[in-house]
């Protein structure tokens, strides 16, 4: 094992221990959230969609499950389970799309479980979790038709996107839907900042689970991220000072 492997393993253990400790603390230490306008508006928009019979769409991006860019889509799946429960009694339950076959299957499993838990197993349809198209730009090309046919009024994007992410958000805007979008790629985040009504910047896409109150592990994850971020920033500052004054060659 090299030194860098050891450091990586120590950081991973720090993450694990911190998440478990924060999760065990649970409600004894209240989480204070900074306001995120998109997530504040989301609840109201979902309620409106349920009432007026329009549909919520969750886009899981154009990345694959086995790729290194699957994390925002996994966060999107957690969000999907919560939204599926909220819209289970609607005339038009939530629909989820992906550009990867395995991701579409995960969306179906997530929806089926959410409906089972909400006591609405009969509402589940396998085509509500679907492969929209198998490549990034064909996915973007297929979106306007899907948004129009399914009468989407809330367009949520949580996944990996390239340049097609800008188009995907813009198509939602043209449909006058509420568009909230987040991704892991920095350049795509710039596109989403310009095109989406409520862009999620940086780690905000990974914080949706905690904001939507999906479970205590989501809140523990958010606290762990903050803790490790403070430690990294402190290490950078100390390293800079040590190097400047010649303590660290």
């Amino acid at each position: 094992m090299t030194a860098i492997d050891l450091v990586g393993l120590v950081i991973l253990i720090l993450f694990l221990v911190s998440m478990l400790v924060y999760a065990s603390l649970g409600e004894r230490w209240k989480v204070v959230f900074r306001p995120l306008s998109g997530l504040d508006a989301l609840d109201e928009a979902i309620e409106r969609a349920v009432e007026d019979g329009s549909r919520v769409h969750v886009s899981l991006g154009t990345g694959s499950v086995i790729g290194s860019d699957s994390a925002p889509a996994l966060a999107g799946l957690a969000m999907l389970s919560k939204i599926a429960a909220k819209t289970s009694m609607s005339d038009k339950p939530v629909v989820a799309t992906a550009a990867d076959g395995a991701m579409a299957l995960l969306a179906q499993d997530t929806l089926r479980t959410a409906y089972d838990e909400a006591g609405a197993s009969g509402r589940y349809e396998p085509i509500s979790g679907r492969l929209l198209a198998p490549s990034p730009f064909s996915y973007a090309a297929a979106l306007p038709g899907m948004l129009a046919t399914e009468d989407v009024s809330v367009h949520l994007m949580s996944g990996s996107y390239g340049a097609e992410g800008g188009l995907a958000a813009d198509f939602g805007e043209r449909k006058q839907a509420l568009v909230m979008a987040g991704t892991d790629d920095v350049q795509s985040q710039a596109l989403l900042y310009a095109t989406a009504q409520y862009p999620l910047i940086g780690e905000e896409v990974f914080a949706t689970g905690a904001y939507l109150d999906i479970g205590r592990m989501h809140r523990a994850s958010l606290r762990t991220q903050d803790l490790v971020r403070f430690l990294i920033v402190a290490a950078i500052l100390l390293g800079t000072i040590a190097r400047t004054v010649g303590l660290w060659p």
Partner: protein
Amino acid sequence: MKLGPYLVWAAVATGTGILVLLGYFFQLDVLIGLRLLLIQWAVLLAAAALMLGLFNLLSVHWNKVSLQQHGWPYSAMLILFFLVTLVLGLLFGPDYEVVLLLFRYVQVPVEASLMALLAISLAVAGFRLLSRRRDLVSLAFVGTTLIVLLGTAPWPIGGESSVYLAFSDVRAWVSQVWAAAGARGILLGVALGAITTGLRVLLASDRPYGD
């Protein structure tokens, strides 16, 4: 914790995840071999999932055609060309001239057109951004975009002028100092979020594979 078959899926997912993860940290032949084997299985499963996904895609469009829903002719076209391409690919292979022709003269131009559409969409989105979110950050975003565009794109006249060179210098300073620093901060947050998301799946707290 309720008991159920999901515990089996969760145990398999967690065990597999831990084995693959340990293979990155410990350079033991057994672990490295296991990691590679499991990743190969994952690739095979992803290919099988793609087939299921394509079947799902066909089901969606077949439903639309059957129920004569809005836009059903497009769905019918999709099914027709999907089947034609699939049969040609299966019978003659992906290097067959007609399959390559379909890719070169249909798929590539459509994707290029979408990239061109993106340029227009972004210009419109820039104006929309200013009308919708008139705050300091949005103004800085649009201002920076203009500076970078003026410093990067060729000017029809005055391409050698001192004004153009000044814009080029400002663009380099903005992109190499401010943008790079900001991007690193964002990447740090994204990396931390991705790790915690992965760990939640590894701990079976998040179970996207269902219960």
